[in-house]
């Protein structure tokens, strides 16, 4: 009997220790990624997507990386009561279990500063999302036209 309890305790310990790796960023799904084409490389680009946490633990998006831009960062656009709109770095983004964050025009967006090459319509680029548990997800982002309004163009 004691042996059984000991085994169960050992199993429980093992599973709880393994939890962060099972339930963290591996349960994150990225959907509807798209970006706008750029004019040359001087202007910052923007990319959008839905980041969904299908797991049962919160995950925290800590940053983004891409070889397309030297300074990629998630920014938040906000418009105040006087109709003046501004942008600021969004910092770390926590996604609750079962929830999603939407990077979409007029809200959060992946701001791609210091483009290394022009973003040409019809091409793709890869972007890596980093999470606080050390996990990462790489997504292929299709580049749509400058006047695109959503993932469908």
């Amino acid at each position, binding site marked *: 009997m004691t042996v059984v309890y000991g085994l169960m305790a050992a199993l429980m310990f093992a599973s709880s220790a393994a939890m962060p790796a099972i339930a963290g960023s591996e349960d994150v799904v990225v959907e509807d990624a798209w970006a*706008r084409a750029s*004019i040359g490389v*001087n*202007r*910052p*680009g*923007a990319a959008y997507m839905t980041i969904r946490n299908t797991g049962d633990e919160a995950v925290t998006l800590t940053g983004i990386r891409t070889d397309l831009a030297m*300074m990629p*960062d998630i*920014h938040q*656009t906000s*418009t105040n009561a*006087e*109709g*003046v*709109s*501004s*942008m600021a770095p969004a910092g770390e983004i926590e996604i609750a279990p079962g929830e999603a964050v939407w990077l979409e*025009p*007029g809200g959060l*967006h992946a*701001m*791609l*500063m*210091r483009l290394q090459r022009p973003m040409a319509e019809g091409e793709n680029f890869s972007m890596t999302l980093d999470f606080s548990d050390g996990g990462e997800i790489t997504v292929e982002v299709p580049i749509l*036209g*400058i*006047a*695109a*309004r959503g993932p469908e163009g």
Partner: protein
Amino acid sequence: MSRRTTLKYAFAGIVAIALTLGVGWWRVDGPGAPEQTGLRPVALSEMEFRLSDHEGNDVGPETLIGRPTMVFFGFTYCPDVCPTTLSDISGWLDDLGEEAEEMNVVFITVDPARDTVEAMAEYVSYFHPLVRGWTGLEEEIARAAQGFRARYERVPTEGGDYTMNHTASVFLFDAEGRFTTMIDYHEPGEFAVPKIRRALNKET
């Protein structure tokens, strides 16, 4: 503490309070107060500014009188708000079709340092063909913004670059140049299109 020192402190305290109140008045009600916001743009006929359109033509508020007008402030180095608004505008114009053909649609830059006539020409070419891009001298942009009651501000970003905060509403005027209404940033098309129609059909 001697009585004299106490008095000195009391006096300093009173001076500090008076100063605080004085500074507060200056900033809230006095000459240092921010210009009142939420004001309506004046009529186009009352505005005065000289700019250049993206084809290098000399333009001003009088260029717009005679047709209904839609005006938006932004800048071409803007990654999110400006392309989104210009695509929204392009979509509304597509929805209106022939109805909108008689309309002036103007995108005025708040960043003339980077938005030259050529930069504006390239940028507007990606949107609806009715969209015109206006730029010019800093002080003329400032005069234009004043007439529209639009605000903008240069904000430094990491790496020595800068971005612009700016009024993101779309202003609508009737054919006589009278302000009719504005469309808020990212307002859905089902509200925006009827507003434009109202500016188009306004009895003059």
